[in-house]
């Protein structure tokens, strides 16, 4: 769960207005056609150079053994086989999935709790919501530095001090092979939950208050009210939060790179950090490109899949 503003950007949002809304407009003449394309040129040039050429270049490189001075050799799908049989990539895949699932669900649950706690119109609640949102607007690199300090692994580190107050043993956090991945997940939840809180708060305002009142008249408990009125009303926003976060978590890089760099002993290596170290540190560009293409394909399939699913649901 990253903090990047790409959050709502994922292409799950269909361009449904694209075909319907334009019926009122007339077809345009030659002078206007020129204007249309002139306005599109900046986006087209930048998109071509920094999105589409790199994408095709990546696909091409993934089929070659890339050697800077000796010339590239075509190797077919060897790079892909290398990736899929590489134990470290498979470990990274496992870590990516564990991290993604933990962060996504954790941030959703915490965001939900925050929204329930901070729902209301009082000025003090508004101030509190503003303060709590800070982790979302802070750059991930800074969030990482903050948590590296909080996680300081000696017994007198900030979090270990707090653990000491409640009588727990100090933890290694980012330095321990069995705690590091969970420590990263906590950071992801911390920085992602307030974002979900805002989405869920917006959903909560949409719930019909008279339903709460009649539930109160019928003597429903708070839990029943939550279970049968609030949750069903929030379902659409929860589904969106979940799918967007799950897809995004596949490519999480910055938080892992800043917090542990994949260590200790590879225990937090995710797909992107493995790709990065192969491509930029070991210069194995062919194999790294194959890994990138696989990531792209999985992202694409997931996005299109959830989109189709959402469409079918909407049609019913």
């Amino acid at each position, binding site marked *: 769960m990253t903090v990047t503003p790409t959050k709502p950007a994922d292409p799950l949002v269909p361009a449904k207005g694209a075909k319907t809304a334009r019926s009122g407009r007339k077809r345009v003449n030659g002078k206007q056609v020129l204007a249309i394309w002139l306005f599109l040129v900046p986006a087209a040039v930048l998109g071509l150079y920094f999105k589409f050429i790199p994408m095709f270049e990546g696909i091409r490189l993934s089929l070659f053994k890339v050697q800077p001075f000796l010339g590239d050799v075509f190797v077919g799908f060897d790079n892909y086989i290398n990736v899929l049989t590489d134990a470290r990539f498979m470990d990274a895949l496992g870590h990516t999935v564990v991290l993604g699932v933990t962060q996504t669900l954790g941030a959703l649950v915490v965001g939900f709790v925050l929204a329930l706690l901070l729902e209301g119109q009082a000025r003090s609640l508004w101030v509190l919501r503003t303060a709590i949102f*800070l982790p979302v607007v802070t750059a991930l690199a800074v969030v990482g530095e903050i948590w590296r300090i909080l996680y300081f692994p000696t017994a007198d580190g900030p979090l270990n001090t707090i653990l000491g107050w409640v009588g727990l043993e100090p933890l290694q956090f980012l330095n321990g092979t069995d705690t590091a991945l969970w420590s990263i997940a906590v950071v992801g939840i911390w920085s992602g939950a307030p974002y979900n809180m805002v989405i869920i708060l917006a959903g909560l305002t949409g719930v019909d208050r008279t339903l709460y009142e009649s539930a109160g008249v019928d003597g429903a408990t708070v839990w029943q009210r939550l279970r049968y009125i609030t949750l069903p009303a929030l379902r659409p926003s929860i589904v969106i939060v979940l799918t967007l976060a799950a897809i995004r978590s596949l490519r999480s890089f910055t938080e892992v790179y800043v917090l542990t760099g994949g260590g200790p002993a590879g225990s937090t290596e995710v797909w992107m950090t493995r790709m990065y170290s192969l491509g930029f540190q070991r210069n194995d560009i062919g194999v790294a490109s194959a890994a990138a293409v696989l990531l792209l394909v999985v992202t694409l399939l997931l996005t299109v899949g959830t989109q189709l699913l959402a469409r079918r649901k909407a049609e019913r």
Partner: protein
Amino acid sequence: MSQTTTRPAARKSTPSASSRFDSALGWSPRFGTNMALRIILCILVFCIFALPFMAIISGAFDRNSSPTDISLLPKSFTLQNFEAAQQQGLWGYLLNSLVVAGGGLLLQMTVSVFAAYSLSRKKFRGQAFAMLLVLMTMMLPEEVIAIPLSLVLGDLPLLGVSLRGSVLAVILPVGIWGFSIFIMSEFMKEIPAEIEEAARLDGVGEFRMLFTIILPLCKPALGVIGIFGFMMVWDQYLLPLIAANDPSDYTLTVALSVLRNDTTVGPGVLLAGAVMAMIPSLLVYLFLQRSMIRGITAGATKG
């Protein structure tokens, strides 16, 4: 956060006794155990989400800050850390960051407004395809195409220019962002065609149409793409990392990890750098908070 203002006004007339039904959990507006519990939970939540920031800021102004001795207020106030940061070239990194953020955001917003104008106010062949390409760029974030992108930055196809080591290597790639184009064109679609037609009868050209008629109506959307764009650019990590020739090209966010790995630099300097990297996003957030919330909820309710 402004969604609280959208409640129907009719509710005001209901007796205040029913305000127990204002929230999903039924928080009571009166003092009592319910209220006390809520206050305690709120304090706890505040500590978890906001206090780490205070600790960082306090550490940046503390004479001997150390992770094992952290406090919410500096024990001995000093600006020494920032002076030391200056010797480490932190102001240069900050300058890089500001140039990249300013230039990148300006380019991104301009490109998005132009593209959105074409995609939403006009009708032409291949429009659906162009929109599809825009949506596709959202699936190609810098991380996924990092390796070929770094090769392209080192040797632009056809032009044969290397952008590496220049701020342009970060500014140009962030200039194209599908989300921004998408939000903008969705908003522009809502503007009635009559406004445009009336102006066209008066002989208004395309540029004037966009800048004097359409754009002033798009202020809310400009706010949204402004703050999301800023956060997107400020948060860039991998791109400045691969676009740099040597560490002096780094932006502040990337430079933080360089400073951390330098054993001669104390934690105080690192914290000073972190505070400097926090301030701009904090300012932008406080000024454009409403747009931020609007953008999040719009992104969430669509689709």
